[in-house]
């Protein structure tokens, strides 16, 4: 029982990261209909910059907002310079451009900081707290920071005029232009916010795994799965989807473990949990193609 709760705790902590990435993907998707395959590598790059700041002597909590600001700016610049001219290009061409971006960030990180793994200290002190037998302090911190970011974003989109304008631009660009809103800038801002959210995810996950250029590859896949499970057009759904995928993944490994211990039969272990989790996600999607929280869009002929 205790082990089960530990696994759920670890799953929630991973889920927080998947949720952030899923949210970043959804933020760009709702306004552009593109899945930013470079989102994970951008987050990885942000984590490296945070690490560099800390190497230069900054504290984590000073480095984090700095990196978020830098990532935000980078996101805006990428949208304005690289993606802007591609509006109206075939979807597959845009996918290839994302793959190009992904490899550029990957290669830059490897070139600047080498491919050797780096240990990143957790910004959260190891202290005892009620329930600390079930969840580590860094895991709890990951969940906490993610939840704060999510609430901040929700507040921004729900209660500020700029947030409202961004929602309007994503929903109906033509009408937003007729309301005098610069839709192009709203898209760029969306990219910036997504990059900043991704940066938080990267900085939070780096101490939990090791910092290396491949760090985000499987995390992006989980984030993508989370976004689709929740319904790709629903930000709240994406967050829930991320947490669901995180817990699911850990439970699969846990159950495989239990089965092996009790029956001696090996079915699934850590090596296959990704595969099994994805099979479940895809099974859910074949049964409910619009995701758990998405709404069905009807195509008119």
């Amino acid at each position: 029982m205790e082990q089960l709760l530990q696994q759920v705790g670890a799953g929630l902590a991973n889920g927080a990261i998947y949720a952030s990435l899923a949210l970043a993907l959804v933020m760009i998707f709702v306004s552009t209909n593109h899945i930013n395959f470079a989102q994970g590598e951008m987050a990885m790059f942000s984590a490296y910059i945070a690490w560099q700041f800390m190497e230069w002597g900054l504290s984590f909590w000073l480095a984090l907002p700095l990196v978020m600001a830098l990532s935000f700016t980078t996101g805006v610049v990428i949208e304005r310079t690289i993606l802007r001219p591609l509006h109206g290009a075939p979807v597959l061409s845009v996918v290839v451009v994302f793959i190009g971006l992904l490899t550029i960030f990957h290669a830059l990180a490897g070139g600047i900081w080498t491919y050797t793994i780096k240990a990143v200290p957790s910004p959260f002190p190891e202290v005892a707290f009620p329930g600390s037998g079930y969840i580590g302090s860094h895991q709890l911190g990951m969940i906490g920071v993610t939840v704060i970011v999510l609430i901040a974003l929700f507040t921004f989109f729900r209660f500020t005029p700029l947030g409202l304008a961004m929602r309007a631009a994503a929903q109906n660009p033509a009408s937003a232009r007729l309301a005098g809103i610069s839709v192009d800038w709203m898209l760029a801002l969306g990219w910036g916010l997504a990059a900043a959210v991704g940066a938080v995810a990267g900085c939070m996950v780096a101490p939990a795994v090791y910092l290396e250029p491949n760090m985000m590859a499987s995390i992006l896949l989980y984030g993508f799965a989370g976004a689709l499970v929740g319904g790709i057009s629903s930000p709240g759904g994406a967050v829930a989807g991320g947490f669901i995928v995180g817990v699911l993944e850990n439970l699969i490994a846990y159950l495989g473990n239990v089965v092996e211990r009790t029956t001696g039969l090996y079915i699934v272990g850590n090596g296959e949990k990704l595969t099994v989790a994805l099979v479940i996600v895809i099974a859910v999607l074949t049964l409910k193609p619009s995701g758990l929280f998405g709404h069905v869009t009807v195509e008119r002929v």
Partner: protein
Amino acid sequence: MADTVASRNGTPAASAAGFVWGYRYGLLLVVLPLLLIAGGKAGFVSNFQFLQLSLMIVYAIAVLGLNLLTGFNGQISLGHGAFFAAGAYTAAILIDQHNWPLWATLPMAALVCFFAGYLFGLPALRLEGHYLALATFALAVAVPQILKYRHLEPITKGVMGINVFKSDPPFGLPLSTDQWMFLVVLAVAAFMFWIARNLLDSRTGRALIAIRDHSMAASTMGINVAHYKAVVFGISALYTGLAGALHGVIFEFVSPDSFRFELSIAILVGAVVGGIASLPGAVIGGVFVQVIEKYADALTKQISAAVQLPLELDPWLIYGIVLIALMYAMPTGIVGGMAVLWRRLKAMRGL
């Protein structure tokens, strides 16, 4: 192979022209390899270069497979590396553990991959766009894990992989193994492209394109959309799997880590860069996949040395920049870009 399906029509004159073209290509397909082999005999073309050429052709077949699915039928796949791996492993296991001859392995690998693709295509019918992208992406990530799966280890040999021995040229032909394999690969490719061309020119091909362009309209015209989509998934997997089998044989080794999801991405990039929904595009895409893999490294070193960069440039950096630049210059791929250029040239001459 000269043109895309959309631009072809079925008039007798056109089919006569097609015959002449086919004849010319056929001649080219005989003369060019003979010249190359002669070059090899004379020492101008090394065995290593024959291997490179073979790999380009192999990737062209793989890209063609994806092209049939994505380009002509509109289903996206980020996971064709999985079928490539399935083909390679089928061939490797049959040759290594069952002593099958090469000529029997290739059709078997193709058959296995057709069924794998067809079975995967059935549930994938319910998935479109990004959902299909995720499902295929997951397939690409899952395959190396499955190959390493403990209960499959006796067959797949786990992380160790399988060594495959190249077959020597038959009848005591005076050819090196690499030269012989080059001829085999080329013959298979020519045959497969010819099949693809005829397939696309048939009723089936028109149905596939109709489904891509408007699946609902296609179904009201009596096209069994589900059936066609699953079958084309199978055919697509067959092509890519056959390429994988050839790759395993000429590379003499298969292992789970040769088929990571980067391979799937490379195949997709090849298809888009070459030109989606175009047979010549598949050839260009295959060449692109291999050239980039081979020469990005050398190119990067030269550039780093030329501008005296303080840090080591990664070859993939150049790859990324090349991809973006290509998509800017030719959003519809190299074949599309050439067509635009050609039209402009003609317009200029017209003036």
